[in-house]
């Protein structure tokens, strides 16, 4: 064979280079999409920052620059306050009010009841869903045989693929009547029913991630604990669970994010009245449900339209913030924890 054949000019591999470039470009699409989502959801609310009778439009278009992943929500809120003085009176004057009444001659866009309502159902969902998900994960990780584990784990994961509109429907028809009879409530649809629905949605998430976290705790830890004479349940609750805390915390955080932004269940099961109250049996209206209910009827380009996109931006930023916490805080904590105990 020709001895110089090893030396082939690099250009002969142009196809490889091209294809690698294409693949890399497509892969970067995910990064671009995250930016586009924020940019274009926020962009539709620009009209709010535009004064209807004056000249601040150049300043207005600088709005996206306040976007800062580190402290996203805060900055935007500051920006809103700053801009509000300059812009159309009706929207911003009522923005921090306690009344959400977007249609009519005198629309009111108070987000407070929506925010409180969202937090209320989310809290109920977590109070129900987190213990169930975490305890179920402990059970399948430590207290049952592999055979049962292989049945129960997929079953709970299957629950995750239940469409939220179906869960919403179930709450609307079954849970609502059940809770009404059980607790003698006045309203069929309320925060409790919505919270139960959201709990059904987040249990599989919390379960799966807690289970993963428990599985990654080194087996040696368990064996050591058992060898020291601790019982199975002591080992599970006092050794394994604490060792998996960061994972459990991220499970709860993701569950929070899912419940906070869930639309269909909230829309179908909470009653959708934008009231501020602490009563779990009262009706609430969440941020996401508001968008879902009102986007359909709104006039595109109106103040109301812009406000709904602003609510969307808030939901986006909260979910993004959660992801940042998960990425930078919990992952390092988890690593430290595991390495610290073993190494």
């Amino acid at each position, binding site marked *: 064979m020709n001895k110089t054949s090893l030396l082939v000019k690099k250009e002969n591999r142009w*196809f*490889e280079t091209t294809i*690698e470039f294409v693949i890399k470009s497509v*892969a*970067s*699409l*995910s*990064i671009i*999409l995250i930016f*586009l*989502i924020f940019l274009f*959801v926020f*962009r*539709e609310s620009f009209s709010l920052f535009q004064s209807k009778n004056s000249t601040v439009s150049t300043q207005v278009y600088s709005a996206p620059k306040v976007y800062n992943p580190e402290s996203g929500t805060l900055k935007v809120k500051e920006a809103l306050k700053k801009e509000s003085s300059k812009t159309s009176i009706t929207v911003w004057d009522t923005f921090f009010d306690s009344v959400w009444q977007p249609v009519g001659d005198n629309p009111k866009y108070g987000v407070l009841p929506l925010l409180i309502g969202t937090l209320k159902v989310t809290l109920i969902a977590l109070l129900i869903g987190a*213990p*169930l*998900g975490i*305890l*179920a994960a*402990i*059970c399948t990780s430590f*207290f049952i045989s592999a055979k049962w584990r*292989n049945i129960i784990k*997929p*079953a*709970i994961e*299957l*629950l995750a*693929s*239940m*469409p*939220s*509109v*179906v*869960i919403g*429907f*179930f709450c*609307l*028809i079954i849970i609502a009547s059940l809770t009404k009879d059980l607790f003698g409530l006045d309203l069929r649809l309320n925060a409790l029913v919505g919270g139960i629905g959201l709990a*059904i949605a987040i249990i599989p998430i919390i379960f799966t991630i807690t289970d993963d976290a428990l599985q990654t705790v080194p087996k040696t830890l368990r064996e050591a604990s058992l060898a020291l004479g601790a019982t199975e*349940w*002591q080992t599970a609750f006092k050794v394994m669970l604490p060792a998996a805390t960061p994972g459990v915390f991220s499970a709860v955080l993701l569950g929070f*994010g899912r419940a906070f932004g869930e*639309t*269909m269940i909230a*829309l*179908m099961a909470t009653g959708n009245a934008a009231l501020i109250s602490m009563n779990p049996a009262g009706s609430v209206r969440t941020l*996401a449900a508001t*968008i*879902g209910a009102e*986007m*359909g009827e709104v006039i*595109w380009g109106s103040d109301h339209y812009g406000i*709904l996109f602003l609510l*969307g931006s808030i*939901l*986006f930023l909260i*979910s*993004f913030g959660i*992801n940042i916490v998960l990425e930078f805080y919990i992952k390092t904590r988890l690593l430290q924890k595991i390495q610290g105990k073993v190494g």
Partner: protein
Amino acid sequence: MDATNITSPIQQNKKLIGFFAVASTIFAVVVVLGLLLTMLGNFVIEGVPGLSWDFITQAPRNNNQEGGIFPAIYGTTLLVLTMTMLGVPIGTITAIYLNEYANPNSFFSRLILFAVNSLAGVPSIVFGLFGVGFFIQFFGAGLDSLFNPSKVIWGQPAIIWASATLAVLTLPVVIISVNEALRSVPVSLREASLALGATKFQTIWKIVLPNSLTGILTGSILAIGRGAGEVAPIIFVGAVYSMPGLPNKLNDQFMHLGYHLFVLSTQSPNVEKTIPIQFATTLVLLLLTFVLSLTAIIIRSRLTKQLQG
């Protein structure tokens, strides 16, 4: 245990706590499984009587209060198929990049993973807003102003934009599951191919991809299952409650099973009367999403068993 051994009250206490600790976890499992079974059982019992050949092949009549749901089945199917065609290639290529080309510790690949995780966490309603803001108002309207300034053809809710929106929403599902499949292809196979003088892309194309087809399939099925069930992102990106005929152009609107169920159960004038239809619709929707997910879970567990055994 030794019968003569007297257990102290503290030990007894501990035993009691232990019993309750274990019992509480089992109780949790029972509650969760009970919920799942109750839901499924309920849907089957209430839904089956409403199912019939006519129900799945006929159009609705009398303002959706009677008749079938064929247009909704058709619309949902068309929607997720278009979504799959848009999303699965992008997701697969991204997974290929992450697994085959990128140095896993590089900033760029960590950034991609971070973006994928962020995408997975974005509430579905926000994707709907993105569909309106980007696909309809920016992209569609942009196309219109370029090619047909006087008319609105693309700058309006349509099945193509709903599919694109869902493709973005399900992208993380595809990426994560294909990535898993690619990772399960043994390094030794790649090395054997490279050692024979195959280029990197030849190795990917001829060895890695054929050996991860199941994974790509699983990813697609999971994405379809997820996409078919999502209602929030499409409410204002093209889904309608009723329409004459079926969608036959990419910019047509469409009927959708989930949206149909939502409107029937919450907004129709006579909710009580259509309850059998609602349950039957739920069952059809579940068959579409649930059965797909179940298939994916089974394929996946087979796959992991193969790898372990």
